[in-house]
C-alpha cells in the first residue's frame, strides 16, 4: 500500500507511539482489503463504548491509548454507553458496572472525543457533508449518513474509527469508491407504507434479501427523518447493508439510476411487512416498553408524551441523546412523560445497557433492530407500533 511521507512518519513513530499504533492498524486493514492508499477523513463516530461489550479488555485498551497520549485530529463523537451517565442507579445498574463505564468515558474524553453517547449524532449537529470521506462505526448511523446524507464511509468498528480519528486517515476501499456505491439489486415496494414502523419492517425485510449488496429502492413516496432512521437501523441489522438508494429521495439515487440495467428485481408485496413483525411476538403484559433505538428525535419524544396524555407510562422507557433531551426538557416533554410514569434516559439504550444483569426478561419495542438483538441475547421480545404497545390503535 502506498503511504505519503507524512503517513510513513506517523507509522514510524515520529508523531508518538499512539499515532504509530493507530497507523499500523489502518495499514493492516488496508492490506486485508487491498487498498491502494489511505485517504484523509474529516469526521469520525466511534462505537465500542458500552462496558457491557468492551469489558475489562476494552477498557484496558482505551486507557492505554489515552495514557500514550492519543488525541483525535478530527471531530469525533461517541456511540451510546451502557447506562445514563448520571441516573444509572435509578436504572438498576450495579456500581461495579458503573465504575467501569465511567472509566471508559473518561478515557475517550482524555483523547478528545466528544462524549455524545448517541447512535444518532446526525440529529445533534454532527452531520457530514455529501461526498465527504468519514470514518463512522455504528451500523445504523453508517447506513443513514451513507444513504441519506451521501457521505462516504465503510462499516467501521470501534478500534478502526478511533484509529481514523487519531490519524485523520482511513484505507481507501469499499463504499469510499464511486464504483462500489452503485446499486446491485432493485427493490420494488408494491405496498403503501403508512408509519415509521412500516419503514422499520421494510428495512428488516430488505436487509434479509439484500445481504451486503446496495439496494435501489423504488415505490416510496417520500419519508421523514424518523422513517429513514428506522429504515437505516433495520436494514443494517438483518443484513450488512451500509448503503441504499431511494428513487426520488436520496441524494445519489438520480446518478445511480444509470446503472440499473440487468439488475435483479425483488418485489415487496403487501403481506410481507406484517409477516416480518410476526416473528417477534413473544413478550407478555409484564414486558418493559422500550423506545429509542435508534435514539428518539424530539418529534418522537413529543409523540410519546402525546400518547401518554391518556394512558399510564408505567413500564415505558424512552432513550435519547443529551442534545435532544435538553430541548425536550425545555419544552416540558420530559416532565410530561415522567409524570405519566415513564422514564427518559440519556447516553444509553436497551441494546447496550446490561438488561439481563438488571434482571430483565421481557421487552416490547417499536424497533426492529432492538427486537433482533434483544432476541439474540435471550430476552423475550415483542415488536409493534408504539401506540399498539401502549394499548390499541395505529401510529401516525
Amino acid at each position, binding site marked *: 500500500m502506498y503511504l505519503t511521507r507524512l503517513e510513513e512518519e506517523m507509522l514510524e513513530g515520529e508523531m508518538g507511539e499512539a499515532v504509530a499504533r493507530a497507523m499500523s492498524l489502518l495499514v493492516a*486493514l488496508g492490506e*486485508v482489503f487491498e487498498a491502494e492508499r489511505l485517504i484523509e477523513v474529516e469526521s469520525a463516530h466511534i462505537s*465500542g463504548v458500552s462496558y457491557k*461489550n468492551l469489558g475489562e*479488555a476494552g477498557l484496558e*485498551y482505551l486507557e492505554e491509548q489515552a495514557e500514550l497520549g492519543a488525541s483525535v485530529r478530527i471531530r469525533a463523537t461517541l456511540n451510546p454507553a451502557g447506562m445514563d451517565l448520571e441516573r444509572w442507579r435509578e436504572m438498576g445498574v450495579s456500581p461495579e458496572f458503573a465504575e467501569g463505564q465511567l472509566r471508559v468515558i473518561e478515557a475517550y474524553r482524555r483523547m478528545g472525543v466528544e462524549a455524545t453517547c448517541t447512535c444518532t449524532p446526525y440529529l445533534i449537529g454532527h452531520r457530514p457533508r455529501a461526498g465527504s470521506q468519514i470514518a463512522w462505526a455504528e451500523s445504523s448511523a453508517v447506513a443513514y449518513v451513507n444513504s441519506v446524507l451521501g457521505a462516504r464511509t465503510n462499516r467501521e468498528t*470501534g*478500534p478502526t474509527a478511533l484509529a481514523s480519528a487519531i490519524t485523520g486517515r482511513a484505507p481507501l476501499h469499499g463504499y469510499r469508491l464511486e464504483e462500489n456505491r452503485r446499486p446491485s439489486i432493485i427493490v420494488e415496494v408494491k405496498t403503501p407504507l403508512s408509519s415509521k414502523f412500516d419503514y422499520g419492517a421494510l428495512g428488516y425485510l430488505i436487509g434479509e434479501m439484500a445481504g451486503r449488496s446496495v439496494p435501489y429502492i423504488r415505490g416510496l413516496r417520500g419519508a421523514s427523518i424518523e422513517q429513514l432512521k428506522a429504515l437505516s437501523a433495520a436494514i443494517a441489522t438483518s443484513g450488512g447493508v451500509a448503503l441504499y438508494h431511494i428513487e426520488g429521495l436520496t441524494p445519489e439515487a438520480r446518478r445511480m439510476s444509470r446503472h440499473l440495467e440487468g439488475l435483479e428485481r425483488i418485489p415487496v408485496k403487501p403481506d410481507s411487512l406484517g409477516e416480518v413483525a410476526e416473528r417477534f411476538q413473544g413478550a407478555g403484559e409484564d414486558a418493559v416498553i422500550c423506545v429509542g433505538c435508534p435514539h428518539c428525535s424530539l418529534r418522537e419524544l413529543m409523540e410519546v408524551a402525546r400518547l401518554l396524555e391518556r394512558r399510564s407510562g408505567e413500564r415505558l422507557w424512552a432513550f435519547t441523546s443529551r442534545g435532544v433531551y435538553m430541548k425536550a426538557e425545555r419544552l416540558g416533554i420530559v416532565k410530561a412523560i415522567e409524570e405519566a410514569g415513564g422514564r427518559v434516559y440519556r447516553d444509553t439504550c436497551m441494546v447496550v445497557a446490561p438488561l439481563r444483569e438488571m434482571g430483565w426478561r421481557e421487552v416490547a419495542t417499536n424497533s426492529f433492530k432492538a427486537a433482533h438483538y434483544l432476541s439474540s441475547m435471550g430476552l423475550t421480545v415483542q415488536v409493534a407500533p408504539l401506540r399498539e404497545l401502549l394499548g390499541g390503535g395505529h401510529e401516525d
Partner: protein
Amino acid sequence: MRIRGRRIVGGYAEGEALVSSASFSFYGGVDPETGIITEPGHPLEGESVAGRVFIFPHGRGSTVGCYIIYRMHRRGTAPAAVINLETETIIATGCAMAGIPLMDRLEENPLRLIRSGDYIVVNADEGYIEI
C-alpha cells in the same frame, strides 16, 4: 522449508504450531487469562494458544474479539503469531492492536502442510514463514 505469504501485521516470532481446521472467535472462544481454548466442540478445546504460532482458516464473531486478543497480549497468553488462509477485519484489528505478527495467503495451504507441534518461524516483515 520456506513459504512466502502476505504480511498483514509485521513482526518476527517463532514457536510451536497450533493448527485448527475450524474458524475461530477469540470472543467466547478462549479464556483470556490462560489462553486455553474453551469453545465447546472446537477441535482444539482444552489446548492453549499462548506463545504458539496459531494457524486457522479465518476469524469470525463479534468485534469484541479484537479487545480479547489485545488483553491476552497484555497477560502474556496471546499467540506468538497468527497465520490465516484469508484474514478478516476482527483478527487483523486485534493483531494490529496487540502488535502480533499476522500473515495470510501463503503460497501453500498451511492447514495441510503444518501439524500442531511443528516448530515455525514467522517473519512477517519479510513476508515468509519457515517450518
